[in-house]
């Protein structure tokens, strides 16, 4: 029988790599020319992006009539996609801020990458409300600036809160990401072979000198930012849920929406991060930094948040019955058995049933199975937003105005384009910046910290 020494913390980086090896390994993708696989991948995502650009261009020229949006379903794919992509972003901040506050060391290997995914997901998401307005060249009117109409925005509208929440989220994530990159850029600066590279890295590392007098403030700043980013990430999807919950539409007007949306966002975000990391660790040989243990931990969080989401679905039904409001009761029965029952049951089977398989350690640690489950979770979470948005709107209080919503080929083109944009940015990221935080990983390697034996 093997004994485990519980007095020793298990190492998060396997195999005691030397610090120099870590540098070289993490900066290898930046120093080598992109290979054939990279070009195949980026031409594929580029093609998806091009599909989206074509669909968007057509929408700009011929108008939003190309979309399936109708009356009463004024919020079709654009809003579904917006909520989906903002949700994807949440995993990054959760990993970099909340897990940091909880001192979860296993986050160090995946934090940088997840933060990058946050930024790209928010960029992708931000596109949708703008095109959904139908006049995407007038977004400035959302900002409270002194204008020639001498009017101000409506501060009691959740849509305006959304503007503030998403833009704050983007800026804070970007700052968080960038200050995390500064020491790594300084490493690259000192390693750089060519003059052009060195100049670029010098500019962006701002002259970082690895001084402990700097590290001291740097760590404090990181703690403060993590402290601010934690309530921020919770607030963002809360406010996104207000877009629904503050209206009086049956199926939307519920107090459970904020926590339910946040759990769902973390759920889908972790599934996406897990999916992408499976490829990254394989392709770049990071298996000892992004260990199987890390993936297992992520699957545990997927299981937890998936169960929360399942609980929320059940509670929505309960409250609809318990409230005694006829319109609410009708909406939920209509969701499960109405014209959109197919979407509802896709959502239930992907979001509620599939993550429950993660109770088994064998499944939690099997890479092919967890990949498939991660994909299913994201399919399910996309359908969740579809179900919430479309079923409520298509059958509201007034039966005479009910209508079935059918997305068009343009809608699908834009959806594919959003995936193309996200993955293209991600691919460019892997070749231009270190996808693992060099300084943070070095600090958690065995033997990297002083033993303080003489104390």
């Amino acid at each position, binding site marked *: 029988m093997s004994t485990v020494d519980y007095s020793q913390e298990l190492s998060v980086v396997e195999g005691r790599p030397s*610090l*120099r090896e870590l*540098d070289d390994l993490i900066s290898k993708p930046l120093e080598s020319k992109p290979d054939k696989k990279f070009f195949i991948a980026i031409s594929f995502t580029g093609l998806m992006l091009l599909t989206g650009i074509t669909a968007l261009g057509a929408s*700009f*020229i011929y108008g939003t009539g190309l979309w399936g949006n109708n009356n009463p379903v004024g919020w079709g794919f654009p809003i579904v996609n917006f909520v989906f992509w903002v949700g994807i972003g949440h995993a990054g901040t959760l990993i970099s801020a909340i897990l940091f506050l909880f001192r979860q060391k296993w986050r160090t290997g995946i934090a940088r990458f997840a933060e990058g995914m946050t930024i790209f997901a928010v960029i992708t998401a931000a596109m949708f409300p703008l095109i959904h307005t139908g006049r995407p*060249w007038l977004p400035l009117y959302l900002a*409270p600036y002194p204008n020639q109409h*001498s*009017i*101000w*925005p*409506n*501060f*009691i509208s*959740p849509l*305006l*809160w959304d503007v*503030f*929440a998403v833009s704050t989220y983007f*800026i*804070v994530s970007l*700052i968080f990401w960038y*200050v995390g990159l500064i*020491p790594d850029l300084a*490493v690259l*600066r*000192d*390693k750089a072979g060519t003059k052009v590279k060195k100049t670029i890295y010098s*500019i962006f590392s*701002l*002259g*970082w*000198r*690895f*001084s*402990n*007098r700097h*590290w*001291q*403030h*740097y*760590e*404090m*700043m990181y703690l*403060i*930012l993590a402290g*601010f*980013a934690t*309530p921020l990430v919770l*607030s963002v999807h809360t*406010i996104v849920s*207000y877009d629904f919950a503050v209206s009086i539409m049956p199926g939307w007007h519920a107090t459970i929406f904020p926590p339910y949306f946040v759990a769902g966002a973390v759920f889908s975000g972790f599934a996406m991060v897990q999916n992408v990391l499976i490829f990254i660790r394989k392709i770049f040989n990071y298996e000892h930094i992004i260990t199987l243990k890390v993936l297992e931990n992520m699957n545990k969080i997927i299981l937890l948040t998936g169960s929360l989401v399942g609980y929320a679905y059940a509670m929505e039904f309960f409250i609809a019955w318990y409230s005694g409001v006829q319109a609410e009761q009708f909406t939920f029965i209509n969701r499960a058995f109405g014209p959109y029952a197919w979407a509802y049951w896709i959502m239930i089977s992907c979001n509620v049933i599939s993550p429950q398989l993660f109770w088994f350690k064998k499944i939690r640690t099997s890479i092919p199975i967890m990949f498939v489950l991660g994909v299913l979770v994201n399919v399910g979470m996309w359908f969740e937003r579809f179900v919430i948005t479309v079923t409520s709107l298509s059958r509201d209080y007034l039966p005479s105005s009910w209508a079935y919503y059918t997305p068009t080929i343009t809608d699908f083109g834009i959806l594919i384009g959003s995936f193309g944009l996200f993955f293209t940015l991600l691919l460019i990221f892997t070749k231009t910046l270190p996808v693992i935080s060099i*300084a*943070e990983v*070095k*600090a958690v390697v065995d033997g990297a*910290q*002083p*033993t*303080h034996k003489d104390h």
Partner: protein
Amino acid sequence: MSEKVLYALTGLFETPDQIIDAAEKTSDGGYKKYDVNTPYPLHGMNQAMKLPPSKLGYAALVFGLSGTVSALALMYWMAVIDYAHVIGGKPYFPLPAFVPVMFEVTVLSAAIATVFTMLFVVFKFPNNSHPLHDTGYMKSVSRDKYGICILAEDEKFDENGTLKFLEELGATNITHQYFTEDSYATWWSVLDKKFAGILAVTAIATSLVVYIGLNKVLYMQPFSWMMEQEKLNPQKGSVLFADGFSMRNPVQGTIARGDLPYEYAVDPEGASKLVNPLPITEANLQLGKVKYDIYCSPCHGFLGEGDSRLRGQFPNPPSLHSEKVRDWTDGRIYHVIAMGQNVMPSYSSQLSRNEKWATILYVRALQRSLNAKESDLQ
């Protein structure tokens, strides 16, 4: 090339335990101006160097709270004072609805302020002309070595003593780091050709992008700003009507409401016969005053004396108190307003019939104020 000046002595260590030990001994040894360079933050180093706790939290607190307060103040001013509108039956000042924006602005300002304070105030970044940059020392500590750096400007520093001190600590690769006076950036480095060139190119590129963006791209399809519409505009051709015009004549024998043609256009004396249809009431005089102040006072002055700011410029605006104008009938004045006179244009498009007559009532009142009739004394 100016003279080399000793900046510091640097030494390298292999393990974290060694550097912690070295840092403790250095600070115990009375050195103040020294630094430790490590590839990542080491636990316990701040205590070893006896550094006071970072005060960045205060920046976060101050800027975060000012973000909260300014967001609230801004929303209060906009939604309650400057543009008060009842929306959805809610009060002008619904505090709970202001909370989300207050929260976001708090986080935003605190996060930006903390990072900017750290980078630009505490670290004085960007600074790429530090003596340690590009040295072998920096290249080692950025990767896997732990370095200590004792500055020459420290009071206890003396070249041989400190060298010996570092040797005793067990440092390897002890190096003298020099800098030249001219390696420090000075204000005239902004005149550097390369820098000024990049600045000029950036300025021109930015201006071009902004100019083309705002003046050309925004007027292309699809950014047509609702200017391109299918409706018919005056002067625009139309295939709908036989004569090819989009403008239509009124139906034969009809006139638009309130649009009675002025029949004395070429007959000023004939217009004298017109009688003011409006009774002298306070409302009419008030209307006349409003219209007079808007349309007449820019030239004739608020009191009708021709005392506007145009006085002294050619031609002087005439006074309305002259004998000539006082003796004119209301109809004759009406003619001047309707048709204009000399450089005065017609005001028909600005003033309706009733407004013209009301203005005349007010002009009469102004005239009486300077040249009262005997009967006014009673």
